[in-house]
Each structure stands twice: as C-alpha cells, then as structure tokens.
C-alpha cells in the first residue's frame, strides 16, 4: 500500500506534483486555503485523478507537501500537521518574491524556520530545487544513467526514508544531504538550486556546496 499524499497549494508546483504523483500511482489529495468546493473544477481538469479536499484533510495524509508561497507559511496549521511527515518545497527567494523579515533576520535556513513554526512535524526539505514544469519533464526510470537527482534534508531518518521512496517513484534519484540545516546547500542561488544533476554529481555537491 502506497502512502497517501496530501498537497497544500494548487499553484504551479502543487498541480505539477499532484499530476506526477497520480501518474506514479499514489492517492493524492490537494487543498488550498479556500474551501474544497472552490477547487473542485480546478482539480478535475488540471490534476485529474486527484481529489479536492479541505486543508485539514490534506494534512491528514501519510505524506504532506507544502507548496504554498513561503510568505504565507504562518497560515499553515501546526495542529493539523503535528506528527506528520511534511516535505517543504518552498523557497525564500527575495529577488523574486520579495524580502521577508522572518527569513532575512534569521540565520537559519527557511525550512528550519518553518519547522520551528510547525513545532511537532517531521519536516524534510526537498522538491524545491526543480522548476515546476521540469517536475513532469525530467523524470526517468530507475537505473537510467541520466536520471536527475533531488536532494533531501531532514532530521528524522524515518521521515527522510519515506520521502526518498516517494521521490524515487516520481522518477528521480533521492540524495541524502544530511540534517534539515544542510538544506542550505540547495536553497536559491546555490549551484544545486540553479543546475540539474545526476546522483553522483549531486552527492559531490552536497558534500562541497559551492556557491553558484
């Protein structure tokens, strides 16, 4: 039995991941901050096979993906996400999205700030360093020498393993980058963020993260 996938956000990233996860055989529930009825048509047409739900229902899935604009992270419900494995696909990218004090004035990575806000979730940073349309174009079968790799950072080994299996089924190699704080190596404006790499290349880069 595959884990159920809950996606918070029906924007470019949320819908691309929903389609890719449905294609991989997962049961996918998708939500925004609006009532489920508001996105029913959207989900039927744009992510057929997924289910439009309330955010609290999406949060009740085995694996939850946060794909909302980062500056809205405080609109997430820590109570709903307590004890959950949560992928943080969000980025703090000031030149594109603007400056936000919560991240500008904090030395931690954006994912650590979000994890601290959620409190009781097992946050794993991943899926943030691939463009939304690439998510459905760059996937390859396991074993393909040109298969793209995605980095995974988190403090909970079991959570990370769940995420790695999910990423593999989406069509990508998952590379363990270390604890959540190590996600710094693939935030915006790093070599990993701006490039596309196979697993051996990505392994080398997470050990020696050069600035782009």
């Amino acid at each position, binding site marked *: 039995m595959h884990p159920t996938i809950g996606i918070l956000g*029906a*924007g*470019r990233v949320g*819908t691309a991941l929903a389609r890719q996860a449905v294609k991989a055989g997962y049961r996918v529930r998708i939500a*925004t901050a609006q009532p489920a009825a508001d*996105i029913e*048509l*959207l989900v039927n*047409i*744009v992510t057929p096979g997924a289910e439009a739900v309330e955010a609290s229902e999406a949060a009740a899935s085995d694996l939850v993906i946060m794909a909302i604009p980062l*500056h809205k992270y405080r609109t997430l419900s820590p109570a709903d996400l307590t004890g959950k494995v949560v992928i943080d696909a969000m980025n703090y*990218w000031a*030149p*594109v*999205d*603007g*400056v*936000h004090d919560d991240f500008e004035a904090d030395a931690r990575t954006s994912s650590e700030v979000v994890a601290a806000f959620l409190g009781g979730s097992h946050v794993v940073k991943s899926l943030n360093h691939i463009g939304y*349309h690439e998510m459905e*174009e760059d996937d390859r079968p396991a074993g393909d020498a040109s298969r793209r790799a995605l980095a995974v950072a988190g403090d909970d080994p079991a959570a990370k393993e769940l995420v790695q299996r999910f990423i593999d089924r989406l069509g990508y190699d998952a590379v363990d980058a270390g604890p959540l704080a190590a996600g710094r190596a693939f935030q*915006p*404006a*790093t*070599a990993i*963020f*701006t*490039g596309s790499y196979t697993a051996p290349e990505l392994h080398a880069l997470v050990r020696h993260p050069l600035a*782009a």
Partner: protein
Amino acid sequence: MEIGAYSFGDTQLNPDGSSRSTAEATKNLFDAIVHADRVGLDYFGVGEHHTVSMPASSPGTIIAAAAAATTQITLGSAASIIGTDDPVRVFQQFATADAISGGGRIEITAGRGSSVETFPLFGYDLNDYDELYAQKLDLLLTLNNSATANVTWSGTARPSIPELDVVPRPVQGSLPIWIATGGSAPSSARAGRLGLPLAYAIIGGQPHRFAPLAQLYRQSAAAAGHTGDNIKVSVATFGLVAPTKKEAVERMYPGWVNLNVEMGRLRGWPAPQKASYLAQVDAPNAYFVGDPDDVAERIVALHGHLGHMRHFFQGDHGGLPHEYLMESITLLATEVKPRVERLLAAK
C-alpha cells in the same frame, strides 16, 4: 486570429556593453508602435517594467501618445501592475487614451507583474500582495462597469470613494479589461469566475501544456454564467521573425544572453548556456523565433490546443538592434498573419 507585439522597452547598448539612454528606448518603443500600426499589426501591448534595461514604466503615457499617432491598431498594457498602482489613475489614463484614439482601440490588462520592483518603489508590502491585487482589481472593474461617471467604492487597499466623479468615461462606455497570468491554475479559474478575458504569458516550457488551464478558464466562466465575446484567451510569448530561421535565431540570441546575465546577477543563476537557448527555439517550445512559415505554423499548432484569438510577441530585450524589431513587426503583419489565416481556414 490577431497577431501582435509587446514590449517592456529595450535599452540599446553601446559597443562597450554600457547602456544607452532610457529616453532613447522610450522613443524607440513609440516608433515601433507607430510602425506596427502602419504595416497592419493588430495589437501592441506595453508592459509595465521598472529597470534600466527595460524602462517602459508608464504604459498609459506611451499608449496615449501612440493613440494620437496611430489609426487602426489595438493598444493595451501588457500588463499594468495593478496591485501597486492606483486603479483610479490607471483607468483615467487609459480612458483618456481611448478618447484620443477615437474609441474602441484601448484596453487594460491587469497583472501582478513577474518581478517585485514596484513594491519598494511605491512603498507597498509584499505580504499584502494578494489582498492589494484583489481589491484594486475590484476597484478597476467597478470604475469600468459604472453606468455614469459617479462612482462609489469602499475597501482597505486605498481610500474609499464616496460618490465621486471619475472621468473621462470611455467612448464606448467601458474598456476591455483583461487578466494576465503566467499560468497558475487558481488564476485561470478566478478570471473565468470574473468573466474577464485572459492573457497567458508563456515564457518557457511547452505552451501547449497550458491547454488544461484554458479549459479550466472556460469551464469556470461557464459555471459562473459568463458566456459570449468576453470569454477569450490571448497568448504572449517570446518571438522574433526574420527572413530566415537562422537569422532569427542569431538575432535574438545576444539579447537573450544579456537578459539572462542580468537576471542571473539578481537571482543567482549561472551563466546562460547557448544550448538552453537553442533548446527553446523550435516547436513545440516557447520561443517563437523563426521565419514566417515556422512562426505561423507554430501559432496555428498552438491554436489547436488553446483556441486563442490573439498571439503577441516580445522580441526586444537585452539590446536587440532596433531595426531587427522593426523588421520582425513588418514580417509579423505582412507575412505571418496571412499565413496564419490561410492555415486556420484550411483546418
């Protein structure tokens, strides 16, 4: 199918790579619009942009000038960044241009803008982005839909308007108001619910992948009871036409590099690679860079997916030599458009 162009202005470069004047770029843009009108292009959009390399910060002003100097072309913003502007002023500027044009050729396209320069420039907080956009769009629509000059509106994004006159009124009562989006599904659904025409800005990837979004837009409109002429889709992409495909690809490339180097400096991208440019210049990818046959065939192929009624192109960025823009505009109007019409009629 309407064929058009759009521009954010394009500041020319000196041989040493330094920028020539933004005033020159503004005059070049004006000249390009007048030229487009003469050669028979259907539409010209002026984007709102606030950088030295792309200085078309004030679309309403250029469009008012162009309204006086043109006779047939439809002119619009592409887009007006409505969240950080005053909708009253935007409406007044475009209604003024409409009066000067004689009426019926002036449109407003409301967008969020793909970059965030307007927030610090006009003193807004990016955290209010959604709320500013929603309220100001509501005000713009209220002004446009008003039966008389006397308008009442209340909100928090701007002082309320208690029964005040907003003039001039458009010649035909109202202006076409479009919504621009880069292709997020919620924006497509919202435009449909509002019953407004929708402009897709497709700057990468494969444009035919927007087909479900266009379907979502149309079905959202139908579900909200909106039918008729206002439910329509236009598409904006990169594009440059030259006598041969080879020339077009070569002409566009240096400006593409300059644009990507500039954006890369801001956003931490690595140096742009020629391979990633070349990967986008052929069907079914996003850069409509080619000879008239190539570009016409690709417009028609995309039409099969999106059913759009207007396709307009940005070719001038990163200091494209002005004569190449002018030639591309000529070819769009005189070579591409008739081919598109012939191909669509044969379908």
